[in-house]
């Protein structure tokens, strides 16, 4: 086999106020898919960003193919054949796929031979099952297609070592499966694929070996996947297998009282196309109504319409029997509508501001945080501290810059703020997406306990398991319409899966 593809030894990396990596060792071989497993904030992305040349380690060595290397920039790394596909894609939306691919290439001739190039791109795409039309502008592509472009871009720059940061977080199950096939193909050709993940099943299905990080340190290095069980992996990742068990014994049955009612609500999306078509549904007091469906069937618009961020083009919304159709987002917040948005950093939080500024986002304009036009700093500080404390957001201070928190801390902060509204209705969109096991558990517990405190919860999630686990009833959204509502007892995966795929007739017959 010769030298390992990658050998990282004793990597240390600290950010202001956070230690991300402590003496991490990591080794991967040519021709394997190597999974890097760990919770949010375990230091996976940091470690791989160091390998990809984005950060410099404070200490430690890196060797590629046995040769010691020092990277000063991602360009250096790609010169040594290391390329990374980040969670947030770096594509130029207004350019075509081919143009985006060209952007990353060294030595592009002044006079472009676009035709040849497009053909090459298409061939490369076909070889790796990364099918995407090179002549289409990127803004027209789905998230999954954009990811394929990113992978193609990295391969075309000559990456022999391909790092993917939680690539399936944004994909549909089918797309995920395709991606796994691609990754295996890439590894089969002798390259190395490093898959950052916290999804155990995915890791089991595709990886040859697995390394686990916890709290910024290595807890397992290069275990062959056949020699560990899922439970063992989970234990390595979380450190405590007990916390994995989810219990729901305390559930009080939902009341008959209606918290939220949608009557024939319609809405259009950003492009002006109908996104919701006469949607009617109810959320009862003390009930979690799960909305299942493949992404892009109106979930986003549904959440926005309920939260007051998007106007309804038809129909009525009633909260506790009162018509709130005309209420603004702020008026709804006042009436107890909490909203956990899909895009935490893009919408729910302000990364460049301190934690305290984010904590008071719904409260800054009234007592006790404000007195007339004035803010009261001491109250803000105390309020923020109480949130951090009550929701166990360790390691963050009211004056910490928000974007330096880990994914799990961010979601806890967001939830803490929304729970502080003492909500009557919670609109939760993908509340656990991208979170590690412990944070997921905590978020789900909070939603359950809010429900038990007689809040109504509208849970929108692409994770069918989550919907099945949490919901009292499940509604399936397909092409902007509710195609079926089932109670948890009646729900089975295949029925719901059929409805999600648009074959609700078949589903009804099956049921």
């Amino acid at each position: 086999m010769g030298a390992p593809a990658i050998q990282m030894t004793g990597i240390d990396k600290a950010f202001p106020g956070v230690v991300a990596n402590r003496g991490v060792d990591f080794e991967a071989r040519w021709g394997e898919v190597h999974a890097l497993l760990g919770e949010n904030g375990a230091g996976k992305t940091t470690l791989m960003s160091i390998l990809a040349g984005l950060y410099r380690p404070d200490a430690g060595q890196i060797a590629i193919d046995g040769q010691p290397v020092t990277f000063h920039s991602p360009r250096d790394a790609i010169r040594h054949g290391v390329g990374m596909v980040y969670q947030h894609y770096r594509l130029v939306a207004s350019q075509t796929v081919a143009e985006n691919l060209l952007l990353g290439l060294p030595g592009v001739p002044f006079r472009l031979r676009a035709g040849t190039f497009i053909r090459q791109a298409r061939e490369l795409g076909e070889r790796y099952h990364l099918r995407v039309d090179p002549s289409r502008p990127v803004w027209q592509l789905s998230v999954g297609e954009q990811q394929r472009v990113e992978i193609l871009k990295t391969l075309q720059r000559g990456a022999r070592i391909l790092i993917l940061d939680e690539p399936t977080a944004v994909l549909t199950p089918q797309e995920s499966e395709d991606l796994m096939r691609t990754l295996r193909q890439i590894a089969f050709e002798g390259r190395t694929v490093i898959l950052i993940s916290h999804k155990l099943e995915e890791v089991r299905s595709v990886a040859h070996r697995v390394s686990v990080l916890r709290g910024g340190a290595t807890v397992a290095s290069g275990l062959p996947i056949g020699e560990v069980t899922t439970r063992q992996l989970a234990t390595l990742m979380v450190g405590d297998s007990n916390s994995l068990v989810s219990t729901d014994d305390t559930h009080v049955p939902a009341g008959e009282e209606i918290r939220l009612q949608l009557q024939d609500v319609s809405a259009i999306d950003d492009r002006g196309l109908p996104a919701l078509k006469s949607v009617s549904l109810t959320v009862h007091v003390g009930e979690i109504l799960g909305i299942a469906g493949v992404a892009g069937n109106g979930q986003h618009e549904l959440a926005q319409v309920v939260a007051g961020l998007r106007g309804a083009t038809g129909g009525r919304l009633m909260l506790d029997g009162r018509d709130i159709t005309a209420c603004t987002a702020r008026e709804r917040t006042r009436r107890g509508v909490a909203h956990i948005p899909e895009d935490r950093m893009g919408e729910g939080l302000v990364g460049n501001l301190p934690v305290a500024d984010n904590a008071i986002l719904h409260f800054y304009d009234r007592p006790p945080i404000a007195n007339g036009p004035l803010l009261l700093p001491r109250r803000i500080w105390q309020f923020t501290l109480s949130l951090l404390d009550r929701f166990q957001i360790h390691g963050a201070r009211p004056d910490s810059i928000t974007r330096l928190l880990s994914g799990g801390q961010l979601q806890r902060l967001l939830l803490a703020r929304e729970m502080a509204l003492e909500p009557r209705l919670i609109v939760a969109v993908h509340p656990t997406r991208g979170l590690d096991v412990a944070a997921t558990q905590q978020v789900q517990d909070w939603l359950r306990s809010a429900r038990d405190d007689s809040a109504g919860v509208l849970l929108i999630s692409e994770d069918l398991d989550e919907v099945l686990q949490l919901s009292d009833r499940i509604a399936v959204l397909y092409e902007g319409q509710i195609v079926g509502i089932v109670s948890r007892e009646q729900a089975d995966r295949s029925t719901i899966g059929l409805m999600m795929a648009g074959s609700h007739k078949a589903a009804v017959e099956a049921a």
Partner: protein
Amino acid sequence: MALSIRLERRVGLPLPQRVFVLALAVLLGALAGGLLVQLSGYSAVAAFSAILDGSFGGSYPVSQTLAAAIPLATIGLGTAVAFRVQLWNIGGEGQFYMGAFGATGVELIGGPAGWPAIILLPVMLIAGFLAGAAWALLPGWLRAWHGVNEIITTLMLNYVAILWVNYLVYGPWKDPQGHNFPFSPRYPDNATFARIGDGQLHSGVFIPVVAAVVLLFVLARTRWGYELRVVGENAEAARYAGMDVRRTMLSAMLVSGGMAGIAGMVQVSGIIHLLNGQLSSNYGYTAIIIAWLARLHPLAILLVSVLFGALVNGGYAVSQEGIPQALGAVLQGMILFFVLGVGDVFTRYRLRVTT
């Protein structure tokens, strides 16, 4: 392996180090500029001592330096308000002229009528603010409601404002006893700020100081300041929180224009004592550089404005030493170049030498 030097991005730089980088940049700029002066056959030492003498060497130079800083600081504070919301108001120049226009409009009524200064000056100040704000209203509204690029609109309106003032002083507002010069009638004493000391410094100097302190407080401690922060950093989050993003943007723009308007009023009442078509030597544009260098921090804007005032007066002093004025400008330019270019780069990146 060969020796290589590279720039690397750094996450954040503590304040003392930032000040150090800035001071180093000024020093390097002065050295580079001095070298050019020396190469041109003049004494760099004489040039520098002229600059220092001309800007801080005695009560008259200090007075002139502070007087020059007043309009820069006042417009700079306004510019910073808009920039904090990511509105690139580069219309400070026009808003400054409109402020002078508004103030003069009131003066033409209240001055000859003999209103006491304690009433006339505040009314002129308010008129200056309103006229400057009005000049920012259109770009602000177009931007917030219709997404029209405010850089273009504010810039274009600068020319309109200057032409408007020129029209007035060539036409209806021309001083009948002014020997046909394009000036408005001279302000009577009740419409001017009292002089302080032996230079041009006047009591209007307290206006930017008070404004900076008020602004500092407002930005940090009020609901409006908070809204500006959130809208400026993440408009999506502001919308999510139910803030009225468009109104917040417009209000920032109005305050920004109003501050420049106040600067115009203070300049005509404090220094020029009449309205004409050459009120500003690019104050509105220099204020953009100042606001940027000061990282939009109100107190830093005051400080940087004084330094700019010193550069302006130091430049005059150089030419009185027999050194061509162009070389004085070269010196200023080098210092600015190093501060803006080099200083800024090293605040964000670090140099790493490797073998």
